[in-house]
């Protein structure tokens, strides 16, 4: 499936609804559905919040494929070049008043997905995330 979203945080609800419907059609395991839903929210919040300093409207494309027991999700946007994998890991072991609030999104994606790749393709950011299930 693929869905095109505007750079508006309100669009994330539409993504959640589309992922829920897609997961039902493909009978994704609950754990995989949740990982997909949450990872996409984290990516989209980042892209929409920080990717577009201009006031114009932009389109973000989300493409999700299932091949056997492997899920691949790709997010493409034409915002500022940003590789989330270069973001430092948050210090989740630190006491509460010593840790910066924020930076948890990419940390969660790293925990939830198996493989994450970033490419700058022309004027676009392309983030690809994989997860498989029922592996021995």
């Amino acid at each position, binding site marked *: 499936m693929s869905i095109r979203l505007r750079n508006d945080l309100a669009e994330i609800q539409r993504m959640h609804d589309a992922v829920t419907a897609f997961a039902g059609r493909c009978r994704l395991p609950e754990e995989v559905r949740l990982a997909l839903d949450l990872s996409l929210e984290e990516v989209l919040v980042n892209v929409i919040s920080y990717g577009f300093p201009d006031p114009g409207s932009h389109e973000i494309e989300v493409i999700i494929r299932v091949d056997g027991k492997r899920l691949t999700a790709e997010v493409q946007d034409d915002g500022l070049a940003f590789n989330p994998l270069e973001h430092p890991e948050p210090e989740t072991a630190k006491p*509460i008043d010593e840790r910066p*609030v924020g930076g*948890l999104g990419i940390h969660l994606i790293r925990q939830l997905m198996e493989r994450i790749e970033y490419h700058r393709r022309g004027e676009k950011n392309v983030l690809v995330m994989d997860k498989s299930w029922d592996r021995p």
Partner: protein
Amino acid sequence: MLEITEGKEGQVTVLGLKGRLDVGSSKTLGDRLLKVMEAETKLVLDLSELDYISSSGLQVLLLAAIRAKDSNRSIVLASMKPQVKQILDYAGFAGVFQLTASVEQAAGNP
């Protein structure tokens, strides 16, 4: 969608969260926590009907925890589902919040 209910367990105020704590609903919870915490020294969040939490929700809880600590108040997270517990664990919340299996337990501990 996030539904917030307010009740009491003994003398302790309990906020029940139902549904999804995501980028669309986290501000609603943040505003509510600010208000409720003004009047309480201890607050329990009943997460038994919370299905989903993203980093936006985690940040609201972290900010509330920092405010609570600064003013000698406490927030206890109770009765979360396994998928929510997993996200809290990934974020390292066990070292930040008291997490309990039940609301009764959360309200009873000093």
